[in-house]
């Protein structure tokens, strides 16, 4: 018999399960639950991909950009030097109003920082402004280094013209920072006045009582010292001090345009790549070992299976 005939005869064999087996299997199959809609990988993928894309998109588009993040700190820096009242950078037309109370004795000190391209002209004009208002410059320090120049001026202006002086000085450039400091000395001067009056009354009493000359002289010196101090305070209050700082604009810093909407995805891929590199470095040898173990187990199992089926 040829191999072809042999195969034909083998294929002609009819092998049918006995009725008892058929009945058993029918009973087993009858217990099968109704077919359900199964969650396959493909279905899970079809659902998971749009969900992941939606989540990624929401993260990327709702994330505040770098430009927005840096805007607030810049504002803080501009406000930082303020002690009493300070304007933010660039508020060239809104200089601070100096509170005026002509009947009170107040020590007024202001600080004004301006940015101008022509510092030397600014110095000249500032001095002219102050002089025209009845004031005078106390000190002027100017220095130049390359394209950058700065000048620091201490100016005295009659207190009743300080508002006008500040307004005119503010027009010399762009206001970078502005500070006004007012200290009211009226109460302390009133107290000094009362003290002087009390001492003068006491002096009159001493003179009437023919007190010793030394005692009268000491009291007189004390009254004169108090009067000098009062006069000095009133003189100081007559003039307001303006510390003016002029500087050229700084070299333009490279503009950071922030990140595009895909920056988040790029960062995510970078971290995924780093993670993958670490995983490969650490997990690579472990995976190789596992594969070798798996191959060995598979080989042993196959050998045993062949031995089992060789009988």
């Amino acid at each position, binding site marked *: *018999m040829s*191999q072809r005939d*042999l195969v034909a005869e083998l294929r002609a064999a009819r092998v*049918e*399960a006995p009725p*008892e087996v058929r009945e058993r*299997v029918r009973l087993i199959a009858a217990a*099968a639950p109704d077919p359900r809609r199964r969650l396959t990988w493909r279905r899970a993928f079809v659902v998971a991909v749009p969900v992941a894309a939606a989540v990624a998109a929401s993260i990327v588009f709702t994330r505040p950009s770098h430009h927005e993040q840096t805007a607030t700190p810049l504002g803080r820096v501009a406000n930082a030097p303020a002690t009493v009242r300070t304007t933010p950078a660039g508020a060239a037309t809104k200089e601070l109003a100096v509170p005026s109370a002509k009947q009170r004795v107040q020590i007024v000190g202001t600080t004004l920082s301006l940015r101008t391209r022509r510092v030397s002209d600014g110095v000249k004009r500032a001095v002219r402004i102050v002089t025209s208002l009845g004031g005078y410059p106390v000190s002027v320090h100017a220095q130049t280094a390359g394209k950058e120049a700065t000048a620091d001026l201490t100016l005295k202006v009659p207190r009743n013209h300080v508002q006008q002086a500040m307004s005119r000085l503010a027009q010399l450039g762009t206001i970078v920072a502005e500070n006004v400091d007012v200290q009211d000395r009226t109460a302390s001067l009133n107290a000094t006045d009362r003290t002087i009056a009390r001492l003068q009354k006491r002096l009159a009493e001493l003179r009437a009582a023919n007190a010793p000359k030394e005692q009268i002289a000491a009291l007189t010196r004390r009254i004169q010292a108090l009067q000098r101090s009062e006069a000095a305070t009133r003189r100081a209050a007559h003039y307001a001090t303006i510390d003016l700082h002029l500087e050229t604009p700084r070299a333009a810093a490279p503009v950071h345009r922030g990140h595009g909407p895909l920056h988040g995805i790029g960062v995510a891929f970078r971290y995924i790549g780093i993670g993958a590199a670490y995983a490969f470095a650490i997990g690579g040898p472990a995976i190789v070992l596992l594969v070798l173990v798996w191959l060995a187990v598979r080989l042993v199992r196959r050998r045993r299976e062949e031995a089992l*089926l060789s*009988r």
Partner: protein
Amino acid sequence: MTFQQAAEAHLDDVYGYLAWFTSDRFAAEDLTAVTFERALRLWHRFDPERGSARTWLCQIARTVALDHFRSERRRARREEIAAPREQVEPRFGEGLSPDLESALARLSAGEREVVALRVLLDLDAGTAARVLGISPTNCTTRLNRALRKLEEALHVAA
């Protein structure tokens, strides 16, 4: 395809495969029932896109048969001293000559298995190889070797 449909369509194939594999029709009857019980438990894992129900059932039947062989071997070791188990006369199906039945019985279980899959169930080499867990080339080699042995056995009988 429901489990009932699969069971009805492939019952004879599974039984035939097990009958040839074990060369014991009584064992094949029990193993067929066990195969379908196990298949029912695992039916939720069956994916028609990865293979036909017949291939999937044959893979389960093979696992069941291997478990059977292992338990038989352990039982034989335990009962070596006791009276040997009654040998069932192999019967592989209707329409086979006694010589061919005898020749099939002389093949090893592994050889009968590959003949059952490739010839009786008419699976192609790739599908049969997947059931056996070997390469298609290895499967074809095993089939040729088994057929040659059958041929030689028939020649000797003649």
